[in-house]
Protein backbone atom coordinates (compact mmCIF):
# COMPACT_ATOMS: atom_id res chain seq x y z
CA UNK A 1 0.00 0.00 0.00
CA UNK A 2 2.73 2.41 0.87
CA UNK A 3 4.47 2.04 -2.46
CA UNK A 4 1.32 2.78 -4.42
CA UNK A 5 0.72 5.77 -2.17
CA UNK A 6 4.14 7.12 -3.02
CA UNK A 7 3.40 6.41 -6.66
CA UNK A 8 0.50 8.87 -6.75
CA UNK A 9 2.55 12.09 -6.88
CA UNK A 10 4.82 10.68 -9.58
CA UNK A 11 1.82 9.52 -11.58
CA UNK A 12 0.14 12.92 -11.30
CA UNK A 13 3.30 14.73 -12.28
CA UNK A 14 3.79 12.60 -15.39
CA UNK A 15 0.14 12.90 -16.28
CA UNK A 16 0.20 16.68 -16.07
CA UNK A 17 3.57 16.96 -17.79
CA UNK A 18 2.46 14.93 -20.79
CA UNK A 19 -1.19 15.89 -20.57
CA UNK A 20 -0.47 19.61 -20.73
CA UNK A 21 0.73 19.74 -24.31
CA UNK A 22 -1.88 17.13 -25.27
CA UNK A 23 -4.69 19.27 -23.91
CA UNK A 24 -3.34 22.25 -25.81
CA UNK A 25 -3.33 20.04 -28.89
CA UNK A 26 -6.95 19.01 -28.27
CA UNK A 27 -8.03 22.63 -27.88
CA UNK A 28 -6.30 23.58 -31.12
CA UNK A 29 -7.76 20.62 -32.99
CA UNK A 30 -11.33 21.32 -31.88
CA UNK A 31 -10.89 24.97 -32.76
CA UNK A 32 -9.55 24.08 -36.20
CA UNK A 33 -12.43 21.73 -36.89
CA UNK A 34 -14.98 24.33 -35.86
CA UNK A 35 -13.30 26.86 -38.11
CA UNK A 36 -13.50 24.50 -41.05
CA UNK A 37 -9.85 23.49 -41.14
CA UNK A 38 -8.29 20.08 -40.63
CA UNK A 39 -5.83 21.28 -38.01
CA UNK A 40 -2.60 19.77 -36.73
CA UNK A 41 -2.69 16.38 -34.96
CA UNK A 42 -3.30 16.35 -31.24
CA UNK A 43 0.26 15.42 -30.36
CA UNK A 44 1.78 18.26 -32.40
CA UNK A 45 2.65 20.32 -29.29
CA UNK A 46 4.72 17.38 -28.04
CA UNK A 47 6.60 17.31 -31.30
CA UNK A 48 7.14 21.06 -31.02
CA UNK A 49 8.63 20.55 -27.58
CA UNK A 50 11.00 17.91 -28.87
CA UNK A 51 12.10 20.29 -31.58
CA UNK A 52 12.63 23.10 -29.11
CA UNK A 53 14.72 21.00 -26.77
CA UNK A 54 17.10 20.24 -29.61
CA UNK A 55 17.73 23.90 -30.38
CA UNK A 56 20.51 26.09 -29.11
CA UNK A 57 20.22 28.11 -25.92
CA UNK A 58 20.23 31.86 -26.39
CA UNK A 59 19.96 34.69 -23.91
CA UNK A 60 19.77 38.44 -24.54
CA UNK A 61 22.97 40.42 -24.10
CA UNK A 62 21.80 42.55 -21.22
CA UNK A 63 19.86 39.96 -19.28
CA UNK A 64 20.98 38.71 -15.88
CA UNK A 65 20.48 35.43 -14.01
CA UNK A 66 16.79 36.26 -13.48
CA UNK A 67 16.04 35.62 -17.16
CA UNK A 68 17.87 32.30 -17.01
CA UNK A 69 16.18 31.04 -13.88
CA UNK A 70 12.61 32.20 -14.51
CA UNK A 71 11.52 29.28 -16.76
CA UNK A 72 12.88 26.80 -14.23
CA UNK A 73 10.97 28.50 -11.40
CA UNK A 74 7.75 28.55 -13.44
CA UNK A 75 8.14 24.88 -14.29
CA UNK A 76 8.99 23.90 -10.72
CA UNK A 77 6.05 25.78 -9.23
CA UNK A 78 3.74 24.13 -11.74
CA UNK A 79 5.24 20.73 -10.97
CA UNK A 80 4.89 21.15 -7.20
CA UNK A 81 1.27 22.27 -7.67
CA UNK A 82 0.63 19.26 -9.89
CA UNK A 83 1.84 17.01 -7.12
CA UNK A 84 -0.29 18.75 -4.50
CA UNK A 85 -3.62 19.09 -6.28
CA UNK A 86 -5.54 15.81 -6.07
CA UNK A 87 -6.28 14.82 -9.63
CA UNK A 88 -6.06 11.08 -9.77
CA UNK A 89 -6.38 10.22 -6.12
CA UNK A 90 -7.05 11.99 -2.86
CA UNK A 91 -4.48 10.00 -0.92
CA UNK A 92 -0.90 11.01 -1.35
CA UNK A 93 2.05 11.52 0.99
CA UNK A 94 1.47 15.25 0.71
CA UNK A 95 -2.24 15.28 1.46
CA UNK A 96 -1.73 17.29 4.66
CA UNK A 97 0.06 20.04 2.81
CA UNK A 98 -2.35 20.28 -0.08
CA UNK A 99 -4.13 23.43 0.87
CA UNK A 100 -6.10 25.75 -1.37
CA UNK A 101 -4.31 28.85 -0.05
CA UNK A 102 -0.89 27.28 -0.67
CA UNK A 103 -1.86 26.36 -4.22
CA UNK A 104 -2.97 29.93 -4.95
CA UNK A 105 0.37 31.21 -3.65
CA UNK A 106 2.37 28.70 -5.73
CA UNK A 107 0.57 29.78 -8.89
CA UNK A 108 1.33 33.42 -8.07
CA UNK A 109 5.00 32.46 -7.68
CA UNK A 110 5.04 31.15 -11.23
CA UNK A 111 3.42 34.33 -12.54
CA UNK A 112 5.88 36.57 -10.70
CA UNK A 113 8.85 34.57 -12.00
CA UNK A 114 7.66 34.87 -15.57
CA UNK A 115 6.99 38.60 -15.21
CA UNK A 116 10.49 39.24 -13.87
CA UNK A 117 11.95 37.13 -16.65
CA UNK A 118 10.04 39.28 -19.13
CA UNK A 119 11.39 42.55 -17.71
CA UNK A 120 15.02 41.39 -17.85
CA UNK A 121 15.74 41.64 -21.59
CA UNK A 122 14.69 45.28 -21.51
CA UNK A 123 12.36 45.22 -24.47
CA UNK A 124 9.13 47.16 -24.59
CA UNK A 125 7.19 43.94 -25.32
CA UNK A 126 8.44 42.31 -22.16
CA UNK A 127 7.59 45.32 -20.05
CA UNK A 128 4.13 45.54 -21.54
CA UNK A 129 3.39 41.87 -21.07
CA UNK A 130 4.68 41.89 -17.51
CA UNK A 131 2.70 45.02 -16.62
CA UNK A 132 -0.56 43.63 -18.02
CA UNK A 133 -0.01 40.19 -16.55
CA UNK A 134 0.63 41.56 -13.06
CA UNK A 135 -2.46 43.77 -13.30
CA UNK A 136 -4.58 40.76 -14.19
CA UNK A 137 -2.94 38.59 -11.52
CA UNK A 138 -3.46 41.24 -8.84
CA UNK A 139 -7.13 41.61 -9.71
CA UNK A 140 -7.69 37.85 -9.85
CA UNK A 141 -6.25 37.13 -6.38
CA UNK A 142 -9.35 38.26 -4.43
CA UNK A 143 -11.60 36.13 -6.65
CA UNK A 144 -9.46 33.06 -6.11
CA UNK A 145 -9.24 33.46 -2.36
CA UNK A 146 -12.93 34.28 -1.91
CA UNK A 147 -13.88 31.22 -3.96
CA UNK A 148 -11.56 29.22 -1.72
CA UNK A 149 -13.34 30.70 1.29
CA UNK A 150 -16.78 29.80 -0.10
CA UNK A 151 -15.70 26.23 -0.87
CA UNK A 152 -14.13 25.77 2.52
CA UNK A 153 -17.17 27.16 4.33
CA UNK A 154 -19.37 24.64 2.57
CA UNK A 155 -17.05 21.66 2.94
CA UNK A 156 -15.66 22.64 6.31
CA UNK A 157 -11.97 22.61 5.46
CA UNK A 158 -9.40 24.32 3.29
CA UNK A 159 -7.51 21.10 2.75
CA UNK A 160 -8.17 20.08 -0.84
CA UNK A 161 -8.29 16.26 -0.55
CA UNK A 162 -10.45 16.71 2.53
CA UNK A 163 -12.84 18.99 0.66
CA UNK A 164 -13.12 16.57 -2.26
CA UNK A 165 -13.72 13.64 0.06
CA UNK A 166 -16.43 15.68 1.76
CA UNK A 167 -18.14 16.41 -1.55
CA UNK A 168 -18.04 12.73 -2.54
CA UNK A 169 -19.43 11.59 0.80
CA UNK A 170 -22.10 14.25 1.19
CA UNK A 171 -23.00 15.88 -2.11
CA UNK A 172 -25.88 17.69 -0.42
CA UNK A 173 -23.52 20.01 1.39
CA UNK A 174 -22.45 21.68 -1.85
CA UNK A 175 -25.68 21.71 -3.80
CA UNK A 176 -26.22 25.31 -2.98
CA UNK A 177 -26.20 28.46 -5.01
CA UNK A 178 -23.10 29.68 -3.18
CA UNK A 179 -21.06 26.78 -4.49
CA UNK A 180 -22.20 27.33 -8.05
CA UNK A 181 -21.33 31.01 -7.82
CA UNK A 182 -17.93 30.19 -6.36
CA UNK A 183 -17.19 27.77 -9.20
CA UNK A 184 -18.34 30.22 -11.86
CA UNK A 185 -16.07 32.86 -10.36
CA UNK A 186 -13.26 30.29 -10.26
CA UNK A 187 -13.91 29.54 -13.92
CA UNK A 188 -13.54 33.19 -14.88
CA UNK A 189 -10.37 33.37 -12.78
CA UNK A 190 -9.07 30.26 -14.59
CA UNK A 191 -9.53 31.97 -17.93
CA UNK A 192 -7.65 35.00 -16.64
CA UNK A 193 -4.79 33.13 -14.98
CA UNK A 194 -4.15 30.67 -17.79
CA UNK A 195 -4.34 33.51 -20.32
CA UNK A 196 -7.18 32.20 -22.45
CA UNK A 197 -9.92 34.15 -24.16
CA UNK A 198 -11.71 36.43 -23.39
CA UNK A 199 -8.87 37.84 -21.31
CA UNK A 200 -5.90 37.08 -23.53
CA UNK A 201 -5.62 35.55 -26.96
CA UNK A 202 -2.98 32.80 -26.97
CA UNK A 203 -2.74 32.82 -30.76
CA UNK A 204 -2.15 36.48 -31.38
CA UNK A 205 1.15 38.10 -32.20
CA UNK A 206 0.00 41.66 -32.39
CA UNK A 207 1.69 43.55 -29.63
CA UNK A 208 -1.38 45.54 -28.76
CA UNK A 209 -3.33 42.41 -27.91
CA UNK A 210 -0.64 40.26 -26.28
CA UNK A 211 -0.30 39.56 -22.61
CA UNK A 212 1.29 36.17 -22.08
CA UNK A 213 2.85 35.95 -25.52
CA UNK A 214 4.58 39.29 -24.99
CA UNK A 215 6.25 37.99 -21.85
CA UNK A 216 7.78 34.96 -23.53
CA UNK A 217 8.87 36.67 -26.72
CA UNK A 218 12.59 36.54 -25.93
CA UNK A 219 12.71 32.91 -24.86
CA UNK A 220 13.98 30.37 -27.38
CA UNK A 221 14.97 26.74 -27.53
CA UNK A 222 14.90 24.73 -24.31
CA UNK A 223 13.92 27.79 -22.23
CA UNK A 224 10.86 28.33 -24.42
CA UNK A 225 10.05 24.64 -24.12
CA UNK A 226 10.10 24.96 -20.32
CA UNK A 227 7.90 28.04 -20.42
CA UNK A 228 5.37 26.48 -22.80
CA UNK A 229 5.23 23.28 -20.77
CA UNK A 230 4.88 25.19 -17.53
CA UNK A 231 1.99 27.23 -18.91
CA UNK A 232 0.18 24.19 -20.30
CA UNK A 233 0.71 22.39 -16.98
CA UNK A 234 -0.94 25.34 -15.21
CA UNK A 235 -3.89 25.09 -17.58
CA UNK A 236 -4.29 21.38 -16.85
CA UNK A 237 -4.03 22.03 -13.13
CA UNK A 238 -6.77 24.65 -13.26
CA UNK A 239 -9.01 22.44 -15.40
CA UNK A 240 -8.36 19.51 -13.10
CA UNK A 241 -9.19 21.59 -10.04
CA UNK A 242 -12.45 22.80 -11.55
CA UNK A 243 -13.38 19.30 -12.72
CA UNK A 244 -12.69 17.70 -9.37
CA UNK A 245 -14.57 20.36 -7.46
CA UNK A 246 -17.57 20.17 -9.77
CA UNK A 247 -17.77 16.43 -10.46
CA UNK A 248 -15.41 14.61 -8.12
CA UNK A 249 -16.83 11.12 -8.62
CA UNK A 250 -14.30 8.79 -10.16
CA UNK A 251 -11.34 10.07 -8.26
CA UNK A 252 -9.58 7.37 -6.29
CA UNK A 253 -10.09 7.62 -2.56
CA UNK A 254 -7.72 4.85 -1.74
CA UNK A 255 -4.47 3.77 -3.31
CA UNK A 256 -5.28 0.42 -4.86
CA UNK A 257 -3.96 -0.07 -8.39
CA UNK A 258 -7.41 -0.59 -9.90
CA UNK A 259 -8.69 2.55 -8.18
CA UNK A 260 -5.75 4.55 -9.52
CA UNK A 261 -6.39 3.31 -13.03
CA UNK A 262 -10.04 4.30 -12.81
CA UNK A 263 -9.00 7.65 -11.33
CA UNK A 264 -6.57 8.31 -14.18
CA UNK A 265 -9.15 7.45 -16.83
CA UNK A 266 -11.88 9.59 -15.32
CA UNK A 267 -9.43 12.46 -14.86
CA UNK A 268 -8.45 12.27 -18.50
CA UNK A 269 -12.08 12.17 -19.49
CA UNK A 270 -13.07 15.12 -17.32
CA UNK A 271 -10.32 17.45 -18.49
CA UNK A 272 -10.88 16.31 -22.06
CA UNK A 273 -14.51 17.38 -21.83
CA UNK A 274 -13.56 20.67 -20.21
CA UNK A 275 -10.91 21.30 -22.86
CA UNK A 276 -13.42 20.75 -25.65
CA UNK A 277 -15.91 23.04 -23.91
CA UNK A 278 -13.18 25.68 -23.48
CA UNK A 279 -12.28 25.45 -27.14
CA UNK A 280 -15.88 25.83 -28.28
CA UNK A 281 -16.26 28.81 -25.95
CA UNK A 282 -13.11 30.40 -27.38
CA UNK A 283 -14.32 30.05 -30.96
CA UNK A 284 -17.49 31.97 -30.21
CA UNK A 285 -15.98 34.63 -27.94
CA UNK A 286 -14.05 37.74 -28.82
CA UNK A 287 -11.23 39.06 -26.74
CA UNK A 288 -12.26 41.74 -24.27
CA UNK A 289 -10.42 45.06 -24.50
CA UNK A 290 -7.62 45.26 -21.95
CA UNK A 291 -9.25 48.12 -20.10
CA UNK A 292 -12.52 46.21 -19.86
CA UNK A 293 -10.77 43.21 -18.31
CA UNK A 294 -10.89 44.76 -14.81
CA UNK A 295 -14.68 44.96 -15.20
CA UNK A 296 -14.81 41.26 -15.99
CA UNK A 297 -12.62 40.54 -12.99
CA UNK A 298 -14.77 42.81 -10.82
CA UNK A 299 -17.76 40.71 -11.91
CA UNK A 300 -15.97 37.52 -10.90
CA UNK A 301 -15.06 39.16 -7.57
CA UNK A 302 -18.69 40.04 -6.93
CA UNK A 303 -19.81 36.52 -7.84
CA UNK A 304 -17.29 34.91 -5.51
CA UNK A 305 -18.22 37.35 -2.74
CA UNK A 306 -21.88 36.44 -3.29
CA UNK A 307 -20.80 32.82 -3.07
CA UNK A 308 -19.31 33.42 0.36
CA UNK A 309 -22.27 35.43 1.66
CA UNK A 310 -24.88 32.93 0.47
CA UNK A 311 -22.83 30.05 1.87
CA UNK A 312 -22.80 31.68 5.26
CA UNK A 313 -26.51 32.52 5.26
CA UNK A 314 -27.74 29.27 3.69
CA UNK A 315 -25.58 26.59 5.30
Amino acid at each position, binding site marked *: MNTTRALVPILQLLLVFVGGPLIVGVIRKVRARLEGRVGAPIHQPLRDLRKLFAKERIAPEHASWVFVIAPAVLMTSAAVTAVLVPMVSTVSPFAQVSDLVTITALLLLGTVALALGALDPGTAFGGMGASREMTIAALTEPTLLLSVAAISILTGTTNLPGAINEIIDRPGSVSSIGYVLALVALGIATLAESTRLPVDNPNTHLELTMVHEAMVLEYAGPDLALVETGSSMRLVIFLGLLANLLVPWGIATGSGVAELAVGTLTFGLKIGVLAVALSVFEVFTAKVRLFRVPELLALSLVLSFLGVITSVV*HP
Partner: protein
Amino acid sequence: MSRSAYADLLNLLAGIALVAAVLTLWRRKLIAIVRLLAVQGAAVAAVGILIGIDNDSATEIVLASGALVLKAVVIPLVLLRVVRRGSETRETEPLVNVSASLVAAALLITIAFATTRAVVSLSDSPEAGVIPIGFAIVLVGFFALATRRKAPAQLVGFLLFENGVALVAVLAAAGVSSVVELGVSLDVLLAVLVLQVLTARMQDQFDSLDLDHLQELRD
Protein backbone atom coordinates in the same frame (compact mmCIF):
# COMPACT_ATOMS: atom_id res chain seq x y z
CA MET B 1 -41.70 16.47 -5.10
CA SER B 2 -39.39 15.96 -2.18
CA ARG B 3 -38.75 18.80 0.23
CA SER B 4 -35.02 19.04 -0.40
CA ALA B 5 -35.45 19.00 -4.18
CA TYR B 6 -38.08 21.71 -3.85
CA ALA B 7 -35.79 23.81 -1.67
CA ASP B 8 -32.86 23.31 -4.05
CA LEU B 9 -34.91 24.28 -7.09
CA LEU B 10 -36.29 27.33 -5.28
CA ASN B 11 -32.78 28.42 -4.38
CA LEU B 12 -31.56 27.80 -7.89
CA LEU B 13 -34.28 29.92 -9.51
CA ALA B 14 -33.83 32.74 -7.02
CA GLY B 15 -30.07 32.57 -7.54
CA ILE B 16 -30.50 32.82 -11.31
CA ALA B 17 -32.74 35.85 -10.81
CA LEU B 18 -30.12 37.54 -8.62
CA VAL B 19 -27.18 36.78 -10.92
CA ALA B 20 -29.16 38.07 -13.91
CA ALA B 21 -29.83 41.29 -12.00
CA VAL B 22 -26.11 41.70 -11.22
CA LEU B 23 -25.19 40.97 -14.83
CA THR B 24 -27.38 43.85 -16.06
CA LEU B 25 -24.98 46.14 -14.21
CA TRP B 26 -22.09 44.62 -16.13
CA ARG B 27 -23.29 44.47 -19.72
CA ARG B 28 -23.25 47.57 -21.85
CA LYS B 29 -25.35 46.66 -24.85
CA LEU B 30 -28.98 47.67 -24.27
CA ILE B 31 -30.34 44.64 -26.15
CA ALA B 32 -28.32 42.32 -23.91
CA ILE B 33 -29.65 44.10 -20.83
CA VAL B 34 -33.23 43.61 -22.01
CA ARG B 35 -32.55 39.91 -22.64
CA LEU B 36 -31.17 39.53 -19.13
CA LEU B 37 -34.35 41.16 -17.84
CA ALA B 38 -36.38 38.54 -19.72
CA VAL B 39 -34.35 35.75 -18.11
CA GLN B 40 -34.78 37.32 -14.72
CA GLY B 41 -38.53 37.76 -15.14
CA ALA B 42 -38.82 34.16 -16.25
CA ALA B 43 -36.98 32.97 -13.15
CA VAL B 44 -39.15 35.04 -10.82
CA ALA B 45 -42.35 33.83 -12.44
CA ALA B 46 -41.05 30.27 -12.40
CA VAL B 47 -40.76 30.56 -8.63
CA GLY B 48 -44.48 31.31 -8.57
CA ILE B 49 -45.18 28.29 -10.76
CA LEU B 50 -43.02 26.11 -8.53
CA ILE B 51 -44.84 27.23 -5.40
CA GLY B 52 -48.10 26.54 -7.17
CA ILE B 53 -46.97 23.00 -8.02
CA ASP B 54 -45.91 22.47 -4.45
CA ASN B 55 -49.28 23.66 -3.14
CA ASP B 56 -51.09 21.61 -5.81
CA SER B 57 -53.14 24.63 -6.77
CA ALA B 58 -54.09 24.85 -10.45
CA THR B 59 -55.22 28.49 -10.25
CA GLU B 60 -51.86 29.54 -8.94
CA ILE B 61 -50.04 27.72 -11.69
CA VAL B 62 -52.19 29.34 -14.36
CA LEU B 63 -51.84 32.80 -12.86
CA ALA B 64 -48.09 32.42 -12.46
CA SER B 65 -47.83 31.29 -16.08
CA GLY B 66 -49.69 34.41 -17.07
CA ALA B 67 -47.18 36.46 -15.10
CA LEU B 68 -44.39 34.54 -16.85
CA VAL B 69 -45.74 35.48 -20.27
CA LEU B 70 -46.01 39.10 -19.21
CA LYS B 71 -42.61 39.37 -17.56
CA ALA B 72 -40.54 37.26 -19.88
CA VAL B 73 -42.16 37.90 -23.26
CA VAL B 74 -44.46 40.90 -23.52
CA ILE B 75 -42.59 43.49 -21.50
CA PRO B 76 -39.18 42.67 -22.99
CA LEU B 77 -40.69 42.87 -26.49
CA VAL B 78 -42.02 46.33 -25.76
CA LEU B 79 -38.66 47.34 -24.37
CA LEU B 80 -36.87 46.02 -27.43
CA ARG B 81 -39.05 48.25 -29.52
CA VAL B 82 -38.01 51.22 -27.38
CA VAL B 83 -34.35 50.32 -27.80
CA ARG B 84 -34.58 49.87 -31.55
CA ARG B 85 -36.25 53.22 -31.95
CA GLY B 86 -33.34 54.92 -30.23
CA SER B 87 -30.33 56.07 -32.20
CA GLU B 88 -27.72 54.29 -30.12
CA THR B 89 -27.61 50.72 -28.99
CA ARG B 90 -25.17 50.95 -26.14
CA GLU B 91 -25.32 52.38 -22.68
CA THR B 92 -22.89 55.26 -22.34
CA GLU B 93 -20.81 55.47 -19.21
CA PRO B 94 -23.28 55.30 -16.34
CA LEU B 95 -23.09 57.68 -13.40
CA VAL B 96 -21.10 55.12 -11.46
CA ASN B 97 -18.60 53.19 -13.59
CA VAL B 98 -19.04 49.47 -14.18
CA SER B 99 -16.50 48.15 -11.69
CA ALA B 100 -17.74 50.47 -8.97
CA SER B 101 -21.37 49.48 -9.72
CA LEU B 102 -20.45 45.84 -9.30
CA VAL B 103 -18.74 46.50 -5.99
CA ALA B 104 -21.75 48.57 -4.90
CA ALA B 105 -24.02 45.69 -5.89
CA ALA B 106 -21.98 43.35 -3.69
CA LEU B 107 -22.34 45.75 -0.76
CA LEU B 108 -26.09 46.17 -1.35
CA ILE B 109 -26.55 42.41 -1.44
CA THR B 110 -24.64 42.14 1.83
CA ILE B 111 -26.91 44.79 3.37
CA ALA B 112 -29.97 42.94 2.12
CA PHE B 113 -28.80 39.66 3.63
CA ALA B 114 -27.82 41.30 6.88
CA THR B 115 -31.06 43.18 7.39
CA THR B 116 -33.41 40.33 6.49
CA ARG B 117 -31.85 37.86 8.89
CA ALA B 118 -34.53 38.58 11.45
CA VAL B 119 -37.26 37.86 8.91
CA VAL B 120 -35.64 34.58 7.89
CA SER B 121 -35.42 33.34 11.46
CA LEU B 122 -39.20 33.71 11.87
CA SER B 123 -39.95 30.60 9.89
CA ASP B 124 -38.26 27.36 8.93
CA SER B 125 -39.80 26.97 5.51
CA PRO B 126 -37.63 26.99 2.39
CA GLU B 127 -39.53 30.04 1.11
CA ALA B 128 -38.38 32.10 4.07
CA GLY B 129 -34.77 31.22 3.35
CA VAL B 130 -35.01 32.72 -0.12
CA ILE B 131 -36.49 36.07 0.96
CA PRO B 132 -33.06 37.73 1.38
CA ILE B 133 -32.39 37.08 -2.30
CA GLY B 134 -35.65 38.86 -3.16
CA PHE B 135 -34.62 41.89 -1.11
CA ALA B 136 -31.22 41.85 -2.74
CA ILE B 137 -32.86 42.02 -6.16
CA VAL B 138 -34.97 44.96 -4.97
CA LEU B 139 -31.89 46.88 -3.86
CA VAL B 140 -29.87 46.09 -6.99
CA GLY B 141 -32.82 47.11 -9.17
CA PHE B 142 -33.17 50.41 -7.35
CA PHE B 143 -29.45 51.05 -7.74
CA ALA B 144 -29.70 50.38 -11.47
CA LEU B 145 -32.72 52.69 -11.68
CA ALA B 146 -30.83 55.49 -9.99
CA THR B 147 -27.52 55.30 -11.82
CA ARG B 148 -28.19 54.54 -15.49
CA ARG B 149 -28.15 57.29 -18.09
CA LYS B 150 -30.16 55.81 -20.90
CA ALA B 151 -33.93 55.60 -20.57
CA PRO B 152 -34.26 51.91 -21.56
CA ALA B 153 -31.59 50.94 -19.02
CA GLN B 154 -33.42 52.90 -16.35
CA LEU B 155 -36.63 51.14 -17.28
CA VAL B 156 -34.88 47.83 -16.88
CA GLY B 157 -33.79 48.91 -13.41
CA PHE B 158 -37.37 49.77 -12.51
CA LEU B 159 -38.55 46.41 -13.79
CA LEU B 160 -35.86 44.57 -11.83
CA PHE B 161 -37.01 46.39 -8.71
CA GLU B 162 -40.58 45.39 -9.54
CA ASN B 163 -39.61 41.76 -10.05
CA GLY B 164 -37.79 41.73 -6.74
CA VAL B 165 -40.86 43.02 -4.92
CA ALA B 166 -42.98 40.40 -6.69
CA LEU B 167 -40.57 37.67 -5.64
CA VAL B 168 -40.68 38.70 -2.00
CA ALA B 169 -44.48 38.90 -2.11
CA VAL B 170 -44.79 35.45 -3.65
CA LEU B 171 -42.43 33.94 -1.10
CA ALA B 172 -43.89 35.66 1.92
CA ALA B 173 -47.47 34.77 1.14
CA ALA B 174 -46.50 31.37 -0.31
CA GLY B 175 -48.62 31.72 -3.38
CA VAL B 176 -51.82 33.26 -2.11
CA SER B 177 -51.14 36.53 -3.85
CA SER B 178 -50.90 35.29 -7.42
CA VAL B 179 -54.00 37.22 -8.34
CA VAL B 180 -52.49 40.37 -6.90
CA GLU B 181 -49.30 39.43 -8.71
CA LEU B 182 -51.04 39.30 -12.04
CA GLY B 183 -52.80 42.59 -11.41
CA VAL B 184 -49.57 44.29 -10.53
CA SER B 185 -47.90 42.90 -13.64
CA LEU B 186 -50.65 44.35 -15.80
CA ASP B 187 -50.15 47.72 -14.10
CA VAL B 188 -46.46 47.48 -14.81
CA LEU B 189 -47.21 46.73 -18.45
CA LEU B 190 -49.29 49.89 -18.58
CA ALA B 191 -46.43 51.87 -17.05
CA VAL B 192 -44.02 50.46 -19.61
CA LEU B 193 -46.33 51.37 -22.50
CA VAL B 194 -46.62 54.93 -21.22
CA LEU B 195 -42.86 55.15 -20.83
CA GLN B 196 -42.48 53.82 -24.37
CA VAL B 197 -44.47 56.77 -25.66
CA LEU B 198 -42.38 59.09 -23.49
CA THR B 199 -39.10 57.78 -24.83
CA ALA B 200 -40.41 58.10 -28.40
CA ARG B 201 -41.09 61.76 -27.72
CA MET B 202 -37.61 62.12 -26.16
CA GLN B 203 -36.04 60.56 -29.21
CA ASP B 204 -37.90 62.98 -31.48
CA GLN B 205 -37.00 65.99 -29.37
CA PHE B 206 -33.35 65.34 -28.54
CA ASP B 207 -32.39 62.62 -31.01
CA SER B 208 -31.03 60.66 -28.11
CA LEU B 209 -32.31 58.64 -25.16
CA ASP B 210 -29.83 60.11 -22.71
CA LEU B 211 -31.79 61.25 -19.67
CA ASP B 212 -29.45 64.13 -18.94
CA HIS B 213 -31.12 65.94 -21.82
CA LEU B 214 -34.29 66.20 -19.71
CA GLN B 215 -32.45 68.79 -17.66
CA GLU B 216 -32.78 71.17 -20.59
CA LEU B 217 -36.55 71.28 -20.13
CA ARG B 218 -36.41 74.32 -17.90
CA ASP B 219 -37.52 77.87 -18.31
